C-alpha cells in the first residue's frame, strides 16, 4: 500500500540521527545564515517599537540592554489617524484593493487558460503556449508608455480611461502576471491523468464541472504557489503604481513609504512602522497558503 509522503515525515528522523555532529554543525550554520538574513527585518521591527526621539540618539540594538524602551507608541500614532486619505491605513487598503483582485484574477485566468491548453482539442495549442512562455521575457518597463497611451486611447474611444485608477493598475498587473501563471499552471496540469477527466465526463460532468470539481482541487498546490508569488510581486510593486496612480489621492503602501523617505528629514518612525505593517500582510498570505504545499496530492488517482 503506497502511503503518501507528507511534511510530517521529518518528525520521523530519529533523535540519534538528529544529534549527529554533522547534523549539529549543519543546523548551526543554517541558523547563523538565517539570523544574518533576518537582521535588517529585526532592526526595522525594533526601530518601529522605539520612541521616535531615541532614533537619533542611539542604535536600535541598545534595546537589548534597555528593553523598557519598547513601546507601541508609533503604532498607536499611525493607526489613530484612521482611514483619512493619505494615511497609512488608507494606503494599506489601497494596496489590498490592488493586490487581492490582481492575484485572484491571475490565478483564475491562468488556470482557465492552462486547462484549455492542456485538455482542449484545438490546433496550435503548443504554439500559443510557446508564445506565452516567450512573453515572460518582456520586461514590464518597456510596456509602461505604450500601455499609458493605450489607456488614453480607450478613454478617447469609450470614455473609460483606466489611467490613474485602481482598475488600471490591476489590469496592468494581471497582464504581466499571466504568462508566468499560465506557464506554471499548464505544467502542473500536464501531470493530471487524462483518465480522471474522462471519468468525470462519463459520469456527467461538463467542462466547467470538470474544471472546478476535479482539476482545480488537484491544482491547489500550484495555485497556492502562484498566488503567493503574484501577491508578493504586486504588493511590493512601486514602479507600476507610481506611473499609473501618479495623480490618485489613494496611494498603495509602497508609494506611501516612498513619499515618507523622499525628503532629507525622513519620518523614520512612520517609515519603519509602515514597513512592518507592509511585511505583515504577505506573511499572513504565505502562512495561510503554505498548508497546500503538500506533496503527493495526486497519490491514489491512478495506479
Amino acid at each position: 500500500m503506497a502511503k503518501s509522503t507528507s511534511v510530517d515525515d521529518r518528525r520521523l528522523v530519529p533523535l540519534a540521527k538528529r544529534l549527529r555532529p554533522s547534523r549539529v554543525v549543519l543546523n548551526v550554520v543554517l541558523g547563523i545564515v538565517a539570523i544574518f538574513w533576518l537582521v535588517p527585518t529585526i532592526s526595522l521591527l525594533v526601530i518601529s517599537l522605539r520612541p521616535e526621539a531615541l532614533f537619533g540618539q542611539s542604535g536600535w540594538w541598545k534595546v537589548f540592554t534597555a528593553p523598557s524602551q519598547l513601546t507601541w507608541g508609533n503604532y498607536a500614532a499611525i493607526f489613530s489617524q484612521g482611514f483619512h486619505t493619505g494615511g497609512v491605513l488608507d494606503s494599506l487598503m489601497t494596496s489590498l484593493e490592488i493586490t487581492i483582485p490582481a492575484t485572484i484574477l491571475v490565478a483564475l485566468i491562468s488556470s482557465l487558460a492552462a486547462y484549455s491548453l492542456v485538455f482542449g482539442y484545438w490546433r496550435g495549442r503548443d504554439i500559443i503556449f510557446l508564445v506565452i512562455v516567450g512573453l515572460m521575457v518582456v520586461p514590464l518597463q518597456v510596456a509602461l508608455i505604450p500601455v499609458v497611451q493605450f489607456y488614453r486611447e480607450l478613454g478617447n474611444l469609450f470614455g473609460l480611461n483606466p489611467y490613474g485608477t485602481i482598475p488600471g493598475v490591476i489590469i496592468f498587473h494581471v497582464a504581466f502576471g499571466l504568462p508566468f501563471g499560465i506557464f506554471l499552471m499548464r505544467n502542473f496540469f500536464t501531470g493530471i491523468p487524462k483518465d480522471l477527466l474522462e471519468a468525470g465526463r462519463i459520469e456527467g460532468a461538463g467542462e466547467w464541472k470538470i474544471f472546478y470539481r476535479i482539476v482545480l482541487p488537484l491544482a491547489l498546490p500550484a495555485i497556492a504557489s502562484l498566488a503567493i508569488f503574484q501577491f508578493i510581486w504586486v504588493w511590493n510593486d512601486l514602479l507600476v503604481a507610481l506611473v499609473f496612480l501618479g495623480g490618485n489621492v489613494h496611494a498603495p503602501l509602497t508609494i506611501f513609504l516612498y513619499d515618507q523617505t523622499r525628503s532629507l528629514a525622513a519620518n523614520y518612525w512612520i517609515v519603519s512602522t509602515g514597513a512592518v505593517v507592509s511585511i505583515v500582510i504577505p506573511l499572513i498570505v504565505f502562512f495561510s497558503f503554505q498548508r497546500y504545499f503538500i506533496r503527493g496530492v495526486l497519490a491514489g488517482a491512478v495506479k
Partner: protein
Amino acid sequence: MSSVNLRELTKRYAGGATLSLDSMNLEIAHGEFICLVGPSGCGKTTALRMIAGLESVTSGEIEIGDRVVNDLPPRDRDIALVFQSYALYPHMTVYGNMSFGLELRKVPKDEIKAAVTDAARILDLEEYLDRKPAQLSGGQRQRVALGRAIVRNPAAFLMDEPLSNLDAKLRVQTRAEIARLHHRLGATMIYVTHDQVEAMTMADRIAVLNMGKLEQVGSPRELYDRPANQFVAGFIGSPSMNFMPLLVENVDGAIRVVSAQHHMDVILSDAEADAIRRAGVSNVVLGVRPEHIDNQPRRDLGLEIRASVEVIEFLGNEVHVHVSSGDDELVVIVDARTPLSIGDTLTLSAPSDGLHFFHPETGVVLR
C-alpha cells in the same frame, strides 16, 4: 432495453495510415457479458472508447438501447466505464468518488446515500467510505472503481482491462467477483482484455479482434472448439495451438496430406479430405492443441508423429513437454505421472476431431 449494437463501426485516427477499427459489426444483447479480446493495438480499446463516447466515430453507427448515440456526449449515453488505471478522484473520499456521478445528475441526497451504501455493501467497502484513494490497496481501489460504476445503474458497463494492475492472486479473485456482479446485476457488460483466460472465464461471448478487424465472435466453447481462422485458433487456449505446414497430394482423386520431411502421418476423415479438396490448395496448415495430443500411437484416424523431448515444464497437475519433430516444434500436455526425460523419443497422436486445417494464405479454417 439496453442492448448495444455496433454497425460498420470504423475508426481512423487523424494522420493514421491504417484503420484502427475496420467496419466492426457486433450485436450485444441486453444482459450479455461480452469480452473484446486481442493483442495490443488490435482496436479493442478504441472500440470501447467509441462506445463510451471518448473517441469520435469515423463512420458506422453505435446504438445503445434503441438510440443511435454517435453524436451524444458520454454523459448522455447512460454507460459507466471502469478504467484500467481506475481513475479515482484523489481529492475525494471513497464515498465522494462513488457519489460524484449521482450528485452531478442531481439525484436527491438520501437516494445517493442509499445507492452508495448498497454498492459499498456488495463490494465490501463499507468501512473504507471515509478514506481517500491513496489510503487504499490496489484491490480496494479497483473495487471503488467498480462501485462508482454500479451506483449509477447504467444501461451498460464498459470495462477497460480492469484487472491488469492487480497481482495474479487478486486478479483471479476479482475475476470471480466481476462474474458474480454481472450475474447479480444482470447488466450488459462490455469487457476489454488482452488476456484470453479472462475472456474465456467470464464472457458469455467473446469477440476476437486483430489489427482493427473482428476475427470471430462466439461463446468461449465455440471459439475453442471451432476457431474460424488461424489467428483465433492461436489466440484462444494456453499453451497455444501447434501449427505445422503440410503438403497436399492428390493421388487419383484421393486427398492426402504429408509433411515435407515425412516425420508425421495424417489419416484424413472423409469430411476433412473433402474440405481440403474444395479449397483447391497445394498445402495446408495443420493446427492441433497441446491438450489434444496423446502420448500413445494412433488408434484409427488422425495424426501420428514421432518427436524427441527437448524441454519439460512440470506444473504439478500436468507437464508441458516441448518436443521437436523435423523442423516442427510442438508443445504437448501429458499427465504429470508420465516418466519422461530430455532426449526421449515419443510416438504421439491426435484424434481426427482434434485437428484443424487452415488455408495457407488466408488462414481461414477449411471445413
